[in-house]
């Protein structure tokens, strides 16, 4: 491929050589510095992770439920239709409020 060196033309070569010499005095602006965002990015990621961890910890604590590990048998003493005391046994997996039917005996007597 033809280049300026191969296609010798003294008039043009002298002209461009002089032009380049003069351009050598031209002030060249500095190459713009890129602000590295890595540190800021890492800090931002760490901040988000920490906030999420705190949030998860907080909400998990608030919604904590006490679940029964095994079925519970509730044995209660109730009166049947003939007014005779009978023992009633019921099984349950969860209890919201359970009050012993005989708890009144502790308070009233």
């Amino acid at each position: 491929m033809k280049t300026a060196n191969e296609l010798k033309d003294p008039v043009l070569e002298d002209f461009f050589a002089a032009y380049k010499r003069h351009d050598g005095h031209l002030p060249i602006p500095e190459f713009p510095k890129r602000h590295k965002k890595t540190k800021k990015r890492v800090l931002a990621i760490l901040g988000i992770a920490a906030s999420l961890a705190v949030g998860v910890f907080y909400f998990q604590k608030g919604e904590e439920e006490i679940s029964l590990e095994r079925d519970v048998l509730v044995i209660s003493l109730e009166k049947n239709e003939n007014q005779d005391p009978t023992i009633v046994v019921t099984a349950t997996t969860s209890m919201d409020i359970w009050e012993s039917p005989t708890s009144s005996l502790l308070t009233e007597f």
Partner: protein
Amino acid sequence: MTRDQLEALVKYLHKDAFLWARQCCGFDGEMARDVLQHVYLKILEGKATFHQQSAAKTWLFAVIRYTSLEWIRKKPVENSLPEIIEIEDQIPEQEERISHEALIQLLPARQKEVLLLVFYHGLTLEKAAGIMQVSLGTARTHYDRGKKNLKCLIINQREHEDSK
């Protein structure tokens, strides 16, 4: 090519890039600075990607040429009065430099571009054609006409100076 490698490459070509940007912007240094800033932004944001199909310099020069054309097209036309030029204060070196640029500016745009790329930046005609986005044949035509025209201008100027 990683972002850091690309940045190092562009940094290495920075001086040539600025000179080419200046030539594309009608020898306006301030505009060249803005154009070059925009070019670097395009590169770092991935809007202009280097596929390594051509030499890095060819690719960068093509981006600069395209961006400066875009910039000139978008630039609003200024109707302000031209600044007063203090001819007496100019030093001879500046006058000579202005005459080089003034002579090149007299050429049609394509002829100017191809001559600058070949003679000033030392690129091949093929690479110049790639930067100018024209076929090799078209580039050669502009090159031959440009050489002829510039030579005439130089000789005329010399004759004019000798006659003084």
